[in-house]
């Protein structure tokens, strides 16, 4: 057999040995997605076979040699109806089935652990609640629902894990979420699938699924000292948010304890659920979302805090369950060196060009734009 070019030969062997039509099924949703895919492939194959069979058999039966006399047929309403209704029915089945899967992929369960992911040209930066940071890799525990809160710092990126059958765009200026539950330990591909500029094809990484114990071990090893919430607290202090958001009787801002997940009445009327997106928005565009009973005096922090900084703040506010913590930050505010300066000099930072350089290091200070 080696009379074929050895290179090609070796290729063929390699391909035959690990030939696959689908990537590994490593998440809870994967088998469900594949079930639908198989169904659609099946339907398509049947449809294609029907067409091909009809065309070939007609071409043979009614070729000029066999059938020199064409018989003029007008058409048939019955047939028209058949091939209108049957495809439509099949397509509608696919639509409903697909919609159900779409619903599952984008509705995270309540108990899901949340990991923040920031996309920037050209890397993925993951922020674990425990303060662990990763570049172009993501460690997740097996058998645990993991929700990703994605945001891009510059252009559209897309966080794609073929083995999990999930994919979500990280878009600038807004959080998007997706969730998955890894079922098989191992290392899988992470791709950026939305074209994002020169090094698009280098914006790849590994998804590492660990056993629960392994994950614990990894967390312990790769901790950066302070948890995300603690960084947030430091930032909260250095930006002296507590000057207003202290639960004192004369406070100019609402108390933030247990605000996460609450339904807040807006000054503009109507209510809103305080989720990550809302918290982020009210840091960057506070006056858009003033809660009832307060005046829009909060300055915007747009262009002053990097996305990592916002994430830290959001995470801090999420975990804020008592006003006592705020009292603490209030006292520590003046202990943080040069925090006022940072907050002030941030003004200059404008536009994506500057945002690009933000958030290189991840301590509270670094998250304030220099």
């Amino acid at each position, binding site marked *: 057999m080696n009379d074929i070019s050895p290179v090609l030969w070796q*290729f*063929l062997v390699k391909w035959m040995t690990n030939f696959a039509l689908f990537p590994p099924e490593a998440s809870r949703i994967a088998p469900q*997605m594949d079930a639908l*895919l198989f169904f*659609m492939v099946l339907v398509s194959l049947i*449809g294609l076979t029907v*067409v*091909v069979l*009809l*065309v070939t058999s*007609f*071409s043979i039966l*009614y070729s*000029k040699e066999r*059938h*020199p*006399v*064409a018989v*003029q047929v007008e*058409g*048939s309403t019955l*047939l*028209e109806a058949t*091939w*209108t209704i049957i*495809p*439509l029915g099949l*397509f509608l089945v*696919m*639509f409903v*089935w*697909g*919609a159900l*899967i*779409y619903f599952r*992929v984008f509705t995270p369960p309540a108990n899901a652990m949340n990991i923040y992911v920031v996309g920037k040209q050209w890397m993925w930066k993951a922020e674990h609640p425990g303060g662990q940071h990763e570049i172009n890799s993501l460690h997740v525990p097996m058998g645990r629902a993991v929700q990703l809160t994605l945001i891009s710092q*510059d*252009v*559209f990126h*897309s966080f*794609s894990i073929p083995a999990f*059958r999930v994919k979500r*765009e990280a*878009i*600038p*200026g807004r959080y*998007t979420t997706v969730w998955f539950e890894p079922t098989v330990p191992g290392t899988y*591909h992470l*791709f950026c*699938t939305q*074209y*994002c*500029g020169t*090094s*698009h*094809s*280098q914006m*790849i990484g590994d998804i590492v699924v660990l056993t629960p114990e392994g994950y614990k071990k990894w967390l312990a090893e790769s901790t950066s000292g302070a948890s995300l919430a603690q960084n947030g607290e430091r930032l909260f202090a250095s930006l002296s948010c507590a000057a207003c958001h202290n639960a004192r009787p004369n406070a100019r801002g609402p108390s933030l304890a247990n605000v996460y997940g609450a339904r807040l009445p807006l000054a503009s009327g109507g209510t809103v659920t305080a989720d990550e997106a809302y918290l982020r928005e009210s840091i960057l565009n506070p006056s858009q979302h003033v809660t009832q009973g307060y005046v829009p005096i909060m300055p915007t922090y747009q262009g002053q805090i990097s996305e990592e900084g916002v994430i830290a703040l959001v995470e801090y506010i999420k975990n804020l369950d008592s006003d006592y913590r705020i009292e603490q930050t209030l006292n520590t505010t003046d202990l943080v060196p040069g925090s006022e300066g940072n907050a002030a000099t941030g003004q200059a930072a404008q*536009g*994506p060009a500057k945002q690009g350089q933000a958030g290189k290091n991840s301590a509270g200070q670094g998250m304030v734009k220099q």
Partner: protein
Amino acid sequence: MSATIVSLPDQSTARVPKVNYLTKENGLLSWLLTGDHKRIAILYLISLSFFFFIGGALAGLIRLELLTPQTDLMATDTYNKVFTMHGVIMVFFFLVPSVPATLGNFLIPLMIGAKDLALPKINLLSWYLYMAGGLLALYTMMTGGVDTGWTFTTPLSTHYVNTSVLTTGLAVFVAGFSSIFTGLNFIVTIHKMRAPGMTWFRLPLFVWAHYAASILMVLATPVVAIAIVLVALERTIGIGVFDPTKGGDPILFQHLFWFYSHPAVYIMILPGMGVISETISTFSRKRVFGYTAVAFSSVAIAVFGFFVWAHHMFIMGISNYAVLVFSLLTMLVAVPSAIKIFNWTFTLYKGSITFETPMLYTFGFMGLFTIGGLTGVFLGTSGTDIHLTETYFIVAHFHFVMVGGMLMAFLAGIHFWWPKMTGRMYPEKISQLAAVVTFIGFNFTFFPQFILGTLGMPRRYASYPPEFQILNVFSTAGASILGVGYLLPVLYLTWSLKYGAVAGNNPWQATGLEWQIQSPPLTENFTETPIMDHEAYDYEWLENQNKENRNKERQKEKEVTSAG
């Protein structure tokens, strides 16, 4: 139910008429300033083929780069420019104008019995706009190129690339108006220029398809024009409309862009479907099965085509409710295509089929378009779209519809009407070979990409994980075969211009009005205004005509002999 015997006339006696639209006037100016739709069609045909081969060459570069996992042929930014220019040139300067600007331009007046399109000057203008846009795009390619992808996604195109987005945008803008004018011209012509007796339901389906496509051209193209203007202004003076840091929403650009660019794929495919209706009827000597169903399905595609654009944005952060709505509407637009496929299939039923080159391309179209259409449903289904979108699955699907569908139809049409356009036949055997080669090469090139897609290989990657290599090798190998398949027609069609057998009026014994006049036609198409007195695809009528002609000839001979 009645029988029709069709006999091909012997070509030997026929000779190419001295006076025709090609020989009417001579000299370059007579072409560059012509108002004759047939000559403008030829101008388009030449320039289109030129751009097609440039786009094809770029495709070749892409396939070569992807032969190996590493970026060894060119740097990533070069690769990005190459696939961007491939997309821009192929979409805006080949696919959109391909069939309408060449075959449509040439045939619509002939088919409806008119002397010309309603607005000949506008028709010529649209060719000049097309050329202006095309050359501008080429110029951009020579001087640095652009690397945003043909979708110009904001904010990448507005703030993050330093390549010539503006000139490319301008090129697309100009080309857009060329296509608007073409569509406008067709609609007016089809409404106002039909010959007496040529009622809407006597129109060939080719005309119906072009009518539907023209509606899309006129109504959708302006939206992409304004979107491009906004991108240009965003880039130059930074109006904040698409800029998140100023409160704009980058997704709005995608809405405006896809409002055109989704209907655009119907602008591309509908005329191709028109061609198929003609060829399949002619070569099975049988009227198209379910004429009205096919006609209305074209219009249905055009109308539904406006409601589905956001299925390109399912995971891009549009609202989940919108996703469901657009997914549902997408399912509806899939049905008319299925209707067409089945009607064409049953047109063969009880026909008397021959397998000349156009018919081979037609079979190719039906197979590949069926696959392309069905895989489209995979992407229109919101759930599976999550996994498949932005991977090579998209690339494969798009190329199955556009190259496997559209281009096959284009070649079918070119071969089918070549005798009418030039008065000479193309060489049958080699062209059949070319058709087969194209089909094989195409499947080799693009079928592996479906598997690559499901395996998760992202599109627009200059380098990729090694386990994807073998399938990419297949794809590249296929591409080289495909290349041969596309070069062959250029060679033998050019050859046939001089050495091809003389075609005569109606070499295929087709029923369309265009086949009842001399080929190549006179500049004024019809010496006298024709009166349409029969249905489209009426082969009994054609047969009777032929009988009459034969009798007339016998009469003549008798007289001659008696006199002698």
